[in-house]
């Protein structure tokens, strides 16, 4: 069966001096009802990947012409603006990181929900209003009818994010892209939102692309996980495999660096150096300056994402496993 | 700061502005060398009244048979000095008041800012006009002082806002935490971080001041003759716009180009300081 959404060779660059290749050849697929998590640290290109899918890259950014985002057999990147708009919000919806800034401060919750409905469906004002109330109830906002008249600043951060989710769900999309949906929220709220997302996805049967920097956040939700580093996917596998047997040294180090409640207090194993800059990706393997296993080959030649039994990995260690330092 | 300068220089429009400003400043500074005539010399009252532009007098001559090119060049000196000096006065005052209000806060802030509100409620031209028109023979120094003393209100407001914003930033708290005193915080941390907006205000303010001085001269209360300021030359040419348009044309163009240059430069500096506003 063909996947619901397929991203092939996605490259997004930003003009400037020097130009930056924020996303540099990303491939993945998303099946119906599946949750794929893209995980990575700041500047790895995960958000730009999400935005590129719906062509939401602004000047001076540019999606390279050979990139393909196939949805329902159509390459979204070659669609006319009007046709693309029919997909946005209706077939593929998005939830963003900062609900406080992602909602228009001068419009009421009702306007912001119903305008999506009215943009994609032929629906009367009253019906749209009723549907908006239903949606607010769906995302568990108490006194939904009253909240319709509220402005975003009158809601707490968690409520705002629920409104964002309600907007995203208004046209029952096939794909929900959630870009760091809980990063700006407190932990207790984060837990609620994550639970809500999980529940809604199950109920509505939509596929979800979950983007996060936090392995803990995706652990409970994702079926598959893609780890990004330096604008590329460096490892992709089922959630269980990633957490149990990380293949890429970066994934491995990342898991060790997270302080965890479920493990005894030990010294954290840090990754040396700092996150690379999109303007100046290192030559060879992009992780090599921070990699404890790196040897000459890593410095000079760039590894490809290679399928293995457990998943795909972009590392020369798959060729020469003996090089792994113990 | 050097980064800012580099950014300003990379901005094409700011570069044009800067070049023009420097050019006018040089012309003003060396007016007596560049100009072929004494700006007040009446060359030939009967034979050379209102000569249209020619090789001998590229900008023509005026009623008194004076060489207009020389007058415009010397006018640059007067107009620019008045503008620069009065802006200096207003910036110093505005910064002082803005700092005081922003740092002290509370009642001091309230009183100062309500006073500034009051002053801003009075059209600036009106305020200057009352003072300049009524006081006899105030001279260039007086004019500079009056222009400066009546134009610092905006500056003080903006400086106050900047102070409040910088004051709340963590590096100020950090400086306090390491035991730095008020003077050190203002001098080392606050001022360097609000210098940018102040420079922008000063640059744009010079242009506006040139316009204000010209407006006053047009109303007959600016610089008094025979001292040639641009506004005053225009006011002179005002009488003969139809028959000898060049008298008012060239100083007018000089004003437009100069103010434009300062605006381009000011905008450039602003862009350099705030890359978001590209």
């Amino acid at each position: 069966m063909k996947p619901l959404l397929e991203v092939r060779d996605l490259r997004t660059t930003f003009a400037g001096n020097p130009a930056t290749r924020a996303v540099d050849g990303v491939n993945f697929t998303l099946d119906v009802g599946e949750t794929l998590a893209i995980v990575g640290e700041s500047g790895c290109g995960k958000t730009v990947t999400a935005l590129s899918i719906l062509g939401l890259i602004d000047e001076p950014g540019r999606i390279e012409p050979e990139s393909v985002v196939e949805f329902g057999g159509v390459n979204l990147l070659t669609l006319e603006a009007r046709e693309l708009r029919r997909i946005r919000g209706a077939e593929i919806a998005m939830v963003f990181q900062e609900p406080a800034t992602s909602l228009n401060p001068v419009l009421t919750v009702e306007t912001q929900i119903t305008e999506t409905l009215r943009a994609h469906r032929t629906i009367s004002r009253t019906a749209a209003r009723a549907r908006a109330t239903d949606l607010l109830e769906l995302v568990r906002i108490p006194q939904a009818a009253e909240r319709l008249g509220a402005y975003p600043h009158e809601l707490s951060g968690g409520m705002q994010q629920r409104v964002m989710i309600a907007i995203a769900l208004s046209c029952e999309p096939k794909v929900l892209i959630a870009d760091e949906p809980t990063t700006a929220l407190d932990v207790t709220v984060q837990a609620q939102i994550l639970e809500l997302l999980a529940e809604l996805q199950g109920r509505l049967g939509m596929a979800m692309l979950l983007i996060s920097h936090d392995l803990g956040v995706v652990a409970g939700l994702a079926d598959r996980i893609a780890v990004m580093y330096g604008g590329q996917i460096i490892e992709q596998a089922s959630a269980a495999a990633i957490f149990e047997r990380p293949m890429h040294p970066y994934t491995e180090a990342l898991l060790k660096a997270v302080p965890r409640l479920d493990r005894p207090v030990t010294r954290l194993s840090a990754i040396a150096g700092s996150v690379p800059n999109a303007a100046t990706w290192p030559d060879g393997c992009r992780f090599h300056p921070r990699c404890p296993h790196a040897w000459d080959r890593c410095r000079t030649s760039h590894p490809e994402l290679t399928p293995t039994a457990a998943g795909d990995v972009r590392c020369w260690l798959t060729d020469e496993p003996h090089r792994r330092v113990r | 700061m050097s980064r800012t300068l580099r950014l300003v220089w990379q901005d094409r429009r700011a570069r044009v502005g800067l070049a023009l400003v420097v050019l006018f400043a040089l012309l003003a500074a060396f007016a007596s060398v560049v100009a072929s005539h004494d700006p007040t010399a009446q060359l030939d009252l009967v034979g050379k009244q209102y000569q249209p532009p020619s090789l001998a007098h590229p900008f023509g001559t005026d009623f008194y048979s004076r060489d207009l090119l020389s007058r415009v060049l010397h006018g640059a000196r007067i107009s620019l000095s008045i503008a620069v000096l009065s802006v200096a006065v207003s910036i110093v005052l505005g910064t002082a008041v803005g700092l005081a209000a922003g740092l002290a806060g509370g009642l001091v802030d309230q009183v100062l800012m309500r006073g500034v509100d009051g002053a801003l409620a009075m059209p600036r031209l009106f305020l200057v006009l009352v003072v300049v028109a009524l006081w006899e023979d105030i001279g260039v120094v007086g004019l500079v002082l009056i222009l400066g003393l009546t134009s610092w209100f905006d500056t003080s407001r903006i400086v106050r806002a900047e102070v409040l914003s910088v004051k709340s930033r963590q590096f100020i708290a950090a400086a306090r935490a390491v035991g730095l005193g008020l003077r050190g915080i203002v001098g080392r941390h606050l001022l360097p971080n609000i210098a940018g907006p102040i420079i922008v205000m000063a640059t744009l303010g010079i242009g506006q001041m040139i316009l204000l001085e010209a407006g006053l001269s047009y109303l007959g209360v600016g610089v008094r003759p025979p001292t040639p300021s641009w506004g005053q030359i225009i006011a002179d040419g005002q009488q003969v716009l139809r028959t000898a348009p060049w008298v008012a044309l060239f100083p007018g163009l000089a004003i437009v180009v100069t103010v434009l240059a300062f605006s381009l430069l000011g905008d450039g500096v602003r862009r350099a300081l705030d890359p978001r506003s590209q």
Partner: protein
Amino acid sequence: MPRICAALIAGVLATACVAERIAPCPDDWCGTAVIATPAEADVLFPPSTQGDIGRSIIDLVFTRLADLGPDLNTVDPTSFEPRLASSWTREDSLTIVFSLNPSARWHDGAPVTAEDVAFTYEVYRDSLVGSPARPRVLQIAGVDVRDPHTVAFRFPRAYLEQLFDAVYHMWILPKHLLGAVPRGELVSHPFGRNPIGAGPYRFVRWRAGESVELVADSAYFLARPGLRRVIWRSTGGDMSAAITQLFSGSVDVLTYLPPEAVQRTETSDEIRAIAYQPSTFYSYLLFNFRDPADPTRPHPLFADRALRRALAVAVDRAAAVRAVDGADGIVADGPVSPAMWIYGAEYERLPYDAARGRRELTQLGWRDSDGDGVLDRYGRRLSFSIIVPETSAQRRRFAQIIQEQFKSLGVEMRITELDFNTFLQRAETGRFDVFYGSYGGDPSPASISEVWTRDAIGGFNFGSYVNPDVDHAVRTALDARDIETARGRWTDAVSLINGDAPAIWISCTVPKAGVHRRFENVSIRGDNLTATLPLWRVPTARRLPRDRYDN
């Protein structure tokens, strides 16, 4: 959007049509004059009105007992023209009796009576009203009502200009409208902005800051005015804007044309320049005889008669006048204006002789010892300042030219342009070296006594000039009973003044107004733009649309 455009265009066309619908003027009595003025009238209450504009309006709305003839002769009784008074007789050397025209009516229909004349006299002499004409009116001892149409003026002494003083300074006011108003409130009474007179034109409206409109009084008891309407339109102080409007045809008359614009009329099909004949003005650089820093002491420079004379002869006034006033410029030759009947008499004048001036300065010990280009003597530089009113373009120009002339002589004259009020205040308090004055309006030589005598100190003798011989000559001239004696005394006085050089007289050039060529029978009397305006008319063939508007 297109619908809105269409509606807009339709509306514009409709209104344009309305605007062009002109009512024919009744009786073929047409003509509208739009007069451009730089400023606005102050008030239209004759005893208080001071500006030229206000005076030009009240001269049409109100009327005097009699008026001067076109030559402005103030001493020849035959040159006076009847107005409200149809005739007058001299009963004795101290009394003149006027017979009022019985058909004279106020614009509200009430007849003009002798009571009105007596009332007017009382108003003008009342200190609560504070009329500028009051000192002149005080020359009259009293006004007696003989009968409703006869009124007698009594004088305390016999002198030549009794008739002039009796008729010229007062426009007759309606007692039946103003008699009950307390004197102190007359000036601010609404009448001053809505006047009712007995003159050739009725007041219609005053749009503040914009225009004053008069319409001819069809019941005027003398000859019917030639133009139906007169409108004063304020064009602001911007001379070039006013000139633009004149030449673009939106106004008919501009009260003053600078020489550049006069030149332009020569090639214009629409506008011509009409001179104010004869001129009642002269301008002068007045020396201060007192030290501005300490008025009890003489002025360090100008107390010296020889220095004043040296400076006076050194100024090439002819060249300056030519440059400023154009080819028609007239150099003033003493404290007299061309309108005065003594103008051009055989009084002494100082010649122009720059070499002589230079020589005299050297003889007085002024040398440039430090080579700074300015003469000096005993460590004092020959440097002084002149105060000039910024409102007068003409005086500003003269000052700058004379400054350059002095400069070539080694004399430094700094120009201080002042706001008019400040200028006047500095003059009144003697805080100046040189004052650039202008005197005018009054065609009588009696005005000399108001500036150049000891009695005028504290008045208009700002420079504190005193010469007992001048005072004596002026006194005898004022008291003279025949024209020849008076002329002789005035000539003596002017000669003495000229010899002392208390001032450098500059220009008494005849000013010119710009007037549309369609008006016929146009002349302008030196003392008032509108004195002869009732005679102007527009020939049928040359009427413009605005001439046909009825009111």
